């Protein structure tokens, strides 16, 4: 019966997926439960902030600069048709603060820091460092996972803000310095159109949510990876794919909640 076989395969996959989501949720709550001790040993978080946040700085800044410059160029080409080049600042700033800053920074973060987290934890598991810790009565979630989680959550909004800020300057550089859009109207219209709560704060909330999603996915994939070379490589790939999809889907939901119907 090939039909029954297909249906059984679908069922198997569904159960697997639901099971993994449930495990990831339990994992998330476990991290929150064991977070207290990692705050008492704050230097662990600082060390992880260095490897997730500081090491991602260069890629974030360079990408932000180029995204802002491209926005400036493309925005100018389009706005020129309607004779409203002076709105270039608005377009660049709103595009970056609302969408591109949080989303692109999170995608870069997922591939730069998330994959590294997964590989690191997966390898720790494969070389039985995690079991060794358990044997020494050190809870691996409190010692390894929770500091990475908080480092990711702290660094993601900061990275997104840096991305947006650098991007605005990239747009300024192309629009005002290179093309010659009026500097006064570039900044003045931007300030008139960008609202602190509605645009900037919502962008920060977005990057916070993305940071949580990416780190939980990355840590879960690493912790759950089969302790083999293939298992770790597969988990790393899954981290990047799943967290990228999660970022884009969450972005749609958040955008609909924040900006839809207003």
């Amino acid at each position, binding site marked *: 019966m090939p039909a029954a076989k297909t249906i059984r395969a679908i069922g198997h996959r569904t159960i697997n997926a639901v099971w993994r989501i449930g495990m990831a949720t339990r994992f998330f709550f476990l991290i929150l439960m064991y977070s207290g001790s990692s705050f008492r040993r704050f*230097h662990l978080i*600082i*060390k992880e*902030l*260095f490897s997730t*946040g*500081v090491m991602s*700085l260069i890629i974030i800044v360079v990408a932000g600069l180029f995204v802002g410059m491209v926005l400036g160029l493309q925005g100018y080409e389009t706005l020129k048709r*309607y*004779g*409203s080049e002076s709105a270039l600042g608005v377009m660049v*700033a709103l595009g970056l*603060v609302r969408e591109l800053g949080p989303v692109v920074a999170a995608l870069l973060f997922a591939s730069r820091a998330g994959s590294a987290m997964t590989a690191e934890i997966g390898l720790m598991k494969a070389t039985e460092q995690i079991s060794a810790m358990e044997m020494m009565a050190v809870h691996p979630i409190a010692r390894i996972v929770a500091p990475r989680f908080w480092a990711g959550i*702290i*660094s993601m*909004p*900061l*990275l997104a*803000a*840096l991305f*947006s*800020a*650098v991007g*605005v300057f990239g747009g300024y550089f192309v629009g005002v310095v290179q093309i010659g859009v009026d500097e006064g109207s570039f*900044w003045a219209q*931007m*300030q*008139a159109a*960008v*609202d*602190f709560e509605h*645009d*900037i704060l919502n962008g*920060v909330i977005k990057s916070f949510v993305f940071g949580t999603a990416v780190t939980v996915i990355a840590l879960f994939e690493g912790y759950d990876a089969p302790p083999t070379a293939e298992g770790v490589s597969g988990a790393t790939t899954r981290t990047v794919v799943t967290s990228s999809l999660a970022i884009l889907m969450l972005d749609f939901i958040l955008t609909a909640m924040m900006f839809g119907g207003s």
Partner: protein
Amino acid sequence: MERTGIDLWVGMFVVAGVAALVMLAMKVGNLGTYNVSDAYKVHAYFANVGGLKATASIKSAGVLVGRVESITLDTERYEAKVVMSIDKRYQFSRDTIGKILTSGLLGEQYIGLDAGGDTEMLKDGEQLKMTQSAMVLEDLVGKFLYSKAEEPAK
């Protein structure tokens, strides 16, 4: 790397991130430009608000003096009730005229206030008596067509 080196880099990273946020708030956003905390509210009825939205600016002689608080339809008069919050520093006479204007050809709509000559000033919760509605393109085209039709044929 040494512990102090890591601390330094992380500190720089956090400071840079917070600085970027502050820069976004002040330079890109409107937090540095306008503060509505100290404001009084007046309302006005318009026959048609056109594309006016809440948070649209209120200007007098081109200077930003306040923001539109809310726009609702008053079902007793079937006119739009616009609540405006205006900065306390700017006092307007009671016969001030409120007009819905458009900045530029395709720009967004705002309320322009033309001060009158009354010696009494508007107080919190009072109403602007004289208003001028937004221009609606269809009405303008209609008026133009009528005036063309009334012209004697050449």
